């Protein structure tokens, strides 16, 4: 039995030290690491940013036997730095279930005060064999606010397609307040519909269709009326909005009205670009188009993806007739939540198990996943054995 002092509301603070074999030692200021899962990491890049000292180089010098070439009074404290660890994890699944895949689109943010430490480039594969770390994104500024603003901007400009990632979580952490306010909702609807309207207008512009020219109407002069539906939690009533989009004098300007409220959107709406910086009601907004499908557009706003349904206004009544598909009863099967290796199988056919009992343990990306029975019952089939490698969504165990 271990007895420890209970510390209420603790902080995890680290102090970086550097010492040589000749009795000299330094401290390079401290780091606040409380917002971390699993308390694994020593985060040297932010110390390098505020001191300007290349810690890795110093370590190699010291290991070689050299004396430290800096004295304590030469260690500065310049500004402020933040580090976000960007992971190939789904922040909505179990607070971070890792995801594997190939990064078919990958663009790191860059600029003044931004440092991206990664071993990844476009086309790289995140596999089950390693830690799902994508990058250590570090920002530096003359004070806390500047560094934080730079971090927000960097996260908004980070393009990662091919694996789910934890940018929505990171972005939420560095955001000042929660954004369920109506004004922000209007902003998202405003620019999402503007982009969608541009897509629809563009669909009518053919460069080689010569028929019916005399009755052709310039799609940029027409106003577009839509019914827009925002994503909602399960069980929540669906919110629908009447939105009208009207192009202005040039095709890069739109006046969007959301249930009668005006949202002015302007900027380069090139649908092929990875990140777009638009002006919404005179305020700059950075977004990325994650997906555009028939009747739907998914955009990133402050790191979070919003899958927005945009349908022509005629659909306003039609949507309510569409049936909700019944949810499949998943309690009798155990599915693999992600690709990985089977570490442990605790049951065999014919065993009686109770709801919540651990049946299988999977391992991937240096993490173990415990999989539990969804209900009480008898085991009908066990489809895997220890050592097997499985894909995502494979039926591992079936209950009667």
């Amino acid at each position, binding site marked *: 039995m271990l007895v420890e002092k209970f510390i209420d509301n603790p902080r995890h603070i680290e102090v970086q030290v550097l010492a040589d074999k000749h009795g000299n030692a330094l401290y390079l200021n401290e780091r606040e690491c409380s917002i971390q899962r699993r308390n694994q990491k020593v985060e040297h890049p932010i110390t390098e940013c505020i001191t300007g000292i290349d810690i890795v180089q110093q370590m190699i010098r010291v290991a070689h036997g050299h004396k430290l070439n800096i004295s304590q009074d030469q260690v500065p404290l310049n500004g402020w730095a933040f580090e976000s660890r960007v992971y190939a994890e789904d922040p909505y699944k179990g607070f971070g279930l890792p995801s594997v895949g*190939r*990064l*078919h*689109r*990958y663009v790191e943010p860059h600029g003044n005060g931004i440092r991206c430490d990664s071993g990844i*480039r*476009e*086309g*790289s594969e995140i596999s089950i064999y390693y830690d799902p770390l994508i990058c250590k994104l570090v920002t530096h500024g003359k004070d806390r606010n500047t560094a934080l603003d730079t971090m927000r901007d960097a996260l908004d400009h980070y393009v990662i397609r091919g694996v789910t990632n934890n940018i929505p979580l990171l972005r939420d952490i560095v955001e000042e307040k929660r954004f369920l306010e109506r004004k922000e909702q209007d902003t998202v609807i405003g620019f999402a519909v503007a982009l969608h309207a541009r897509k*629809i207008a*563009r*669909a*009518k*512009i*053919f*460069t*080689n*269709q010569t*028929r*019916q020219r005399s009755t*052709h*109407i310039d*799609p940029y002069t027409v106003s577009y009326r839509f019914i827009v539906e925002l994503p909602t939690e399960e069980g929540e009533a669906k919110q629908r909005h009447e939105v009208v989009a009207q192009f202005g004098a040039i095709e890069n300007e739109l006046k969007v009205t959301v249930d009668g409220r005006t949202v002015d959107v302007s900027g380069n709406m*090139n*649908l*092929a*670009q990875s990140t777009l910086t638009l002006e919404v009601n005179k305020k700059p907004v950075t977004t990325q188009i994650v997906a*555009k*499908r*028939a*009747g739907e557009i998914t955009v990133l706003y402050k790191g979070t993806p919003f899958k927005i349904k945009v*349908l*022509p*206004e*005629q*659909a306003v*009544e*039609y*949507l309510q*007739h*569409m*049936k909700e*598909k019944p949810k499949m009863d998943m309690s009798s099967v155990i599915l693999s939540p992600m690709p990985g290796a089977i570490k442990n199988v605790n049951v065999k056919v014919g065993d009686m198990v109770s709801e919540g009992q651990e049946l299988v343990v999977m391992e991937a990306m240096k993490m173990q996943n415990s999989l539990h029975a969804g209900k009480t019952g008898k085991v009908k089939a066990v489809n895997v054995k220890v050592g097997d490698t499985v894909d995502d969504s494979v039926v591992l165990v079936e209950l009667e």
Partner: protein
Amino acid sequence: MITRLTRPIISGCSNLHKRLCSAAANSSIQHTLRVAEQIEKKRAAALLGGGQARIDAQHKRGKLTARERVNLLLDKGTFREYDMFAEHTCTEFGMEKEKYAGDSVVTGRGEISGRTVFVFSQDFTVFGGSLSSVHARKVCKIMDEAMRVGAPVIGLNDSGGARIQEGVESLAGYADIFQRNVLASGVVPQISMIMGPCAGGAVYSPALTDFTFMVRDSSYLFITGPEVVKAVTNEEVTQEELGGAKTHTTTSGVAHGAFENDVDALMSLRELFNYLPLSNKDASPIRAVDDQWDREVKSLDTVVPLESTAAYNMKDVVTALVDEGDFFEIMPEYAKNLVIGFARMNGRTVGIVGNNPKFAAGCLDINSSVKGARFVRFCTAQEYGGIIRHGAKLLYAFAEATVPKITIITRKAYGGAYDVMSSKHLRGDRNYAWPSAEVAVMGAKGAVQILFRKDKANHAKHEAEYIELFGNPFPAAVRGFVDDIIVPSTTRRRICEDLNLLESKKVKNPKRKHGNIPL
């Protein structure tokens, strides 16, 4: 409306008018007004189809009505309906007592993204959408006009089949439609969207069209229903298992795609339509484009794994190459070892055919050959903008095709597959190889087993020599069978340049009634 007209006429009578406002004149004016009223009444009734009760029943099933579907499919305000007042002519079984304006189908023309399309939408609320002679005549009329002016035909199917009371007239109606399906084939694109039951002889029409799509959980396509199956073979099978969307998109290959519900289906149909030319006399559409044609595609340099037997997903190659990664895949759940679909390169619609190593090592088998052949022939029939593909019926289709053909060998091109997949020898216009390409009769292991049968001890050495010799693009490049070995990240730029060049390509096949493609 009547009151507005009568007041000025009756109250504003001068002497001359008083003479004219005699009883006879009055009654003819009344008649005119009555007729006008009757027309409006009939129009309003036509809009209700089989009545509000049946409309509600349709909605309860999660389905839209025939008119609602047309409303959603076409650009707002562009629908010009034909034959709204047509009524059935059957007098058997007391049918003359029940007539509906427009009968069981809504037909006409409209626009999708500003381009003309002809559409028929079967009305399940009128006699279960069953086909009468008038229903067939309405459909034939729009098909005939579509062929005359050169515009696609979209059919929204939701019908219980032939109208039994009409007897052979109904069967004759179907035949008239089938004949037109065949005549229109290769002339204008024909698309069928199954949005309800489609049974018995009715299934032949969608089968004859270029593309057939279904709506999940509410549409069924089968020649004989579960009741008859049970009666004859004593086999229990549900409607869904026999002819639902899942069966036809994964097992039978009859449907080219399935959608979650009516709204999703119609919105997606609009997207597909934007890729298609209006007729075989029209050029493949080139649309305004945002994606730069000379964009370097870095991810292609690493998409083919260094390990030559490791699988990769051909779809990753396709979405990286095409404009904005927009790829409308056809038959995504069937014969997954071959990927087909539409995309745009620099705004120009192209058809894509690619072997997918992720499934069955991307080999060409019966199902994938048929899947590919039908698609290639659709592209050629429409005098397409170009067929791009990266890997008996398929070979015929490619050899016969006179549209621009661009081929990229991404990795293995072994044996017949090398020939079949639009090789230079089948008049491929541009053939490229990536550095990872391997062109050989067969893989090392198999080859060595045959060539060095008597020298088993040295097989490993021979395999290494074979790989050295054939596991690369040189055998093909040295003979000019590929035009160049290209850096993968430059593939997009190359294809866009070539498509531009090949726009003016002219090649003809020898004159004949029709070839004899192995069926």
